[in-house]
Each structure stands twice: as C-alpha cells, then as structure tokens.
C-alpha cells in the first residue's frame, strides 16, 4: 500500500477480463500505480494466477454471486468501502448486467464520476484518465475526462483480450470484507434457463435472424448453426416481436449493441435501429433474398437467396 493504486473488477477469469487487467496494468505502469484485481465470486477461482500474469500486483475476492439479484447493492458497498481505504486513481469494471448496476451505485456512494461502456482508455495530456465510449448507436465517439478521483468506468467486454498463459503461477485471493447480501427480492419462478448463445456482448461470432426466417421453427436452426460455430444467437426487433426469439437476443438500438468479429444476418432487412447496434462488428455478412434490403449496403459479403435454404446448407457444410 506504499504506491497509489488502481482497481479492476470482474466476475470470472476469461480472456476478456484478462485483457482488461492487462490494459489496466499498462495504464498503471505509465503512472507507477500498483494494480489490484478483484473478482466477485462465491468460490475462489482455480486460475487466479492468470491475473498476476496479466499484470495485477494484488488479488482480492468479494464473496457474492453475480447471479444474485440482491447482490449489486452489497457489492457496491463493499467496493466503495475498499476504495475509501485504498484511495485508488481509477476503478474499472468489466461491463455486464451485474456491474452495470454495481458501478453506478459505487460511483454514487463515492460521489465521483462514472462512464459507461468504454472501448478505449488512455492518459490525457492533463494527467487524467481519458475514457472513450461510443454513443448514439456508435455514430459518435465521446472522450470523457473526470474532475476528481477515483475515475470509475465500465469497459465493454471483449475490447481487450489476452489469452491464458500456460506458465501462470498459483495464487490465492484474500477476501474483501463484505456483508451477506441483504434479502430484498425472493425468487419465485425461473421462466427460461440460460441458453447457450445469449452472451451477445462478448461473442466473437453472432448468427442473427430477422422476420425473413419465417417461423419459430426455422429460427431454431440458427441455434443449431451457432452451436456448431461456437457463436451467439441474435435477433432483430421484428423477429423478437414475432416471437421467434426472446428479448435477450435482440440486437440493435432497443436491444444490445454488439461488436463481434463476424456478424451474419439471416433474413434481416437492416433497419437503421438494427444497423446502429452492429456498427462495431468487424465483418458483416448478410443473407437475404431481397436485393434491395438495406443490409446489403453495409455488408462485406451478401448472399441474395432464400435465407432458410442458405442456413440449411450452412449447417450441412459446417457439420462436414
């Protein structure tokens, strides 16, 4: 605790979180800060040493579950108390539905600024941490600076990535003091179990369907393809409205903004609201029988043919 420090917070050790730790480490190195990596998890992760490899000087754990609807307020309390004693320069959170609650609550407790969903971080010339984030559906890029510390920000998943090291040492994670989550909400029913293919924000490949898929049955084939490719399944607003997919799959301005390496749109016409949500994709491939569909204007490769037919053929080819 001799050096001033910084904190990075996540819930699991993944290439995306390791990438964030590494970026935080690079920022810390420029300012001679020490870095603490905090994991929110009820159990101690087996591969905590990966965080040291990524650049963390110290590790800590908060024993709460990110699945627990009652946990955010308790996590915010615990992190803000930790921040009161540690006086960090910045606290970065991996963007997830859990931390998107926890981070602004923590900022309110600390009475300091918070920026959502950053895609780049750097030191500005005036010595403050500059946080860059897209807004207006990716049409604007805002550079945010703070007038006081700590600087709090959530960072979009998958922006920074770092592969696991085979040579990481063993490390343990001491616990940060934390109350038990205060019981506010009682779960009465689970309606739909987590299905593979809904982690849209962190996905490398997304296969997505629109109204052109024609039926719920056809739409289900997207899941088959997604399973084969290790992809997530997205949907246009129209497809969700038609009941082909749940809201969790909705991509676009009223759903999730995504930035995969590859986005494949089946039977999606390409309404502005949808295109805004996929503007961060590295490659967009479109399958739509209508040559006039706007999506073709923005795609890197278009198949102008019946989307269910192409999907069937893709599944066949991916399987062989």
């Amino acid at each position: 605790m001799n050096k001033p420090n910084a904190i990075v917070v996540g819930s699991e050790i993944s290439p995306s979180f390791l990438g964030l730790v590494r970026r935080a480490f690079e920022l810390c190195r420029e300012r001679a800060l020490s870095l603490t990596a905090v994991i929110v998890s009820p159990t101690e992760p087996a591969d905590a040493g990966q965080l040291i490899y990524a650049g963390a000087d110290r590790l800590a754990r908060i024993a709460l579950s990110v699945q627990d609807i009652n946990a955010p307020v308790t996590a915010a309390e615990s992190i803000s108390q930790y921040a009161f004693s540690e006086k960090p320069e910045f606290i970065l959170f991996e963007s997830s539905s859990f931390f998107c609650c926890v981070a602004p609550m923590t900022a309110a407790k600390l009475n300091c600024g918070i920026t959502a969903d950053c895609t780049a971080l750097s030191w500005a010339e005036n010595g403050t941490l500059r946080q860059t984030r897209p807004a207006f559906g990716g049409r604007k890029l805002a550079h945010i600076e703070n007038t006081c510390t700590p600087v709090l920000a959530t960072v979009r998943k998958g922006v920074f990535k770092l592969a696991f090291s085979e040579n990481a040492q063993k490390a343990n994670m001491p616990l940060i003091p934390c109350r038990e989550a205060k019981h506010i909400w009682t779960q009465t029913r689970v309606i739909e179990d987590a299905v593979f293919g809904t982690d849209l924000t962190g996905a490398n490949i997304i296969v997505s369907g629109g109204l052109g898929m024609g039926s719920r049955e056809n739409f289900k084939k997207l899941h088959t393809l997604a399973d084969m490719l290790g992809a997530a399944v997205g949907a246009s607003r129209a497809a969700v409205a038609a009941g082909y997919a749940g809201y969790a799959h909705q991509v676009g301005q009223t759903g999730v903004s995504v930035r995969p390496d590859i986005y494949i749109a089946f039977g999606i016409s390409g309404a502005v609201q949808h295109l805004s949500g996929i503007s961060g994709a590295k490659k967009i491939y479109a399958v739509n029988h209508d040559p006039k569909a706007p999506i073709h204007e923005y795609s890197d490769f278009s198949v102008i043919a019946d989307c269910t037919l192409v999907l069937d053929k893709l599944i066949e080819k991916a399987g062989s």
Partner: protein
Amino acid sequence: MNILVCLKIVSQATFTDSLTDNDDRLSGGKLGINPADAYALELALRIKDNAPETMVTVVTMAPSYAENALRDAIAAGADRAVLICDSALAGSDTLVTANILAAAINRLGGFDLVLCGRKAIDSETGHIAPQLSERLGLPMAAAVTAFAIDGDTLRICCTNDGVSAEYEGAVPAVLSVCNGTDMVRSPTVMGMRRSKKAAIERLTLADIGISAENAGLHGSPTRTAAVETMSFRKGKKCVCTDADAGAQALIELIKGGKRDE
C-alpha cells in the same frame, strides 16, 4: 398507488434518420420520449388500467422545449407531468442528474414506485436507476420486463443475460425497465384534449434545494472533452446469388476469420 416514471426526452432523429446524417441532426429535430422510458410509462399505465385510482406522474429534467413531449405522456394517460428546468442544469452528467432527480422526487414525495427505462438511446449509460436507488435509499431491480402490485407486495419479472425469473419484493422500489416486445399505446382523443389543457408543473433548482454549483457542468465529476463523429461502415458489396455457392463462401469466410482483408 403512486407511480413515478422518469423520462428522458431525446431527439427523434437519434432513432429514425439515416446513418449518414451528420451530428447537427442528432441533437435537433423533433423530440420524443426515449423508447425504454415510453415502455416504462406503458407498464405504469397498465397498472392504472386495472386500478384506476393509481396516480401516474412523469418527470423529466430538460430545457423548456421538452414540454411537448411531456404532453405526449399525458395524452397517453399520465395524470401529472413535472419539468425540472433551470439554466444552471446544462452539462449535468449522470451522477448530477440522479442527484437532481432524487431531490425532485423527495420534494414531490409519496411515490410507491419509481420507474426508469433501462437506457437512453442517445447516451446509452443506464446509470440513472442504480444511482437513484442509492440516493433515495430504495431497493432496485434491473432488466424488469413486467410487474404487478398487490398491496405492499411487488412482483417483478426480470430478463437478464438470457434468464427470465420472477421475484417478489415490496414497495417502495426503483425499477429499471427493459423494452419488452409489446406495443406502447397511442394517445386517445380524450387524452390529446386533456394534454392540451394540462398544466406542466415546473421545478427549479431552488425549488428542490440544490445549489447551482452542485449542478450542471460545473457540478459534474465527468465532462466530455471531445466528440468524434464516426462514419458508418460501408460494405464491400460482394454478392453471390446462388444459395449453395453462397453458403460455401460463408463457411470459408467464417473459418478463415479475417482472411479476406
């Protein structure tokens, strides 16, 4: 039952104009209620449909020009609209906005539920609901797609990362509402008539007991140092019109990753 819905008034150009439009249009043009907030209002009005004694109030922090959008909320069925309007508010970030809304909510008083849309489609932060819950000292739930009230019992349905679940809690609470797939109601003729005559209540910083130095850009811990306009990607327009050849090409593109660069 007394429900408050926090609205953000956004430029309609944000979600209707073509992607090539430049910045001026994004902050100008016709104003409307942010879609997720409109959905939150819809959920509140459904409670009122079944329990007509329910009082639905809408509040926004915005310049005077937001008044028409508040009248839209009254036309849809809201009972009361409040505009927090003060020249010292310009440049407020999310923390200050939550502070101001919380002070206004305390000043107005007596709400069983405070609803916010999950995110605004212009700034896309989703900060207000968690920060309001912190400032008001009320429990909060996020990603709420439906709710029902039975006495003091509040039943909510949340959809998070692909899991939908139902929970029971109690009022008062702050709920952050996701756009569901149902349609938001259109104003009725009666509603339109009522909205024209309705008085929009105004609150200034002095009314809610916050000093100018704690508001606006001056009071905000974050500020926008610079903004860049991104040009939306244009495709390469490679086209294949044969289903089988197209599927084959797609497989190769997927397996080759970025090979076509």
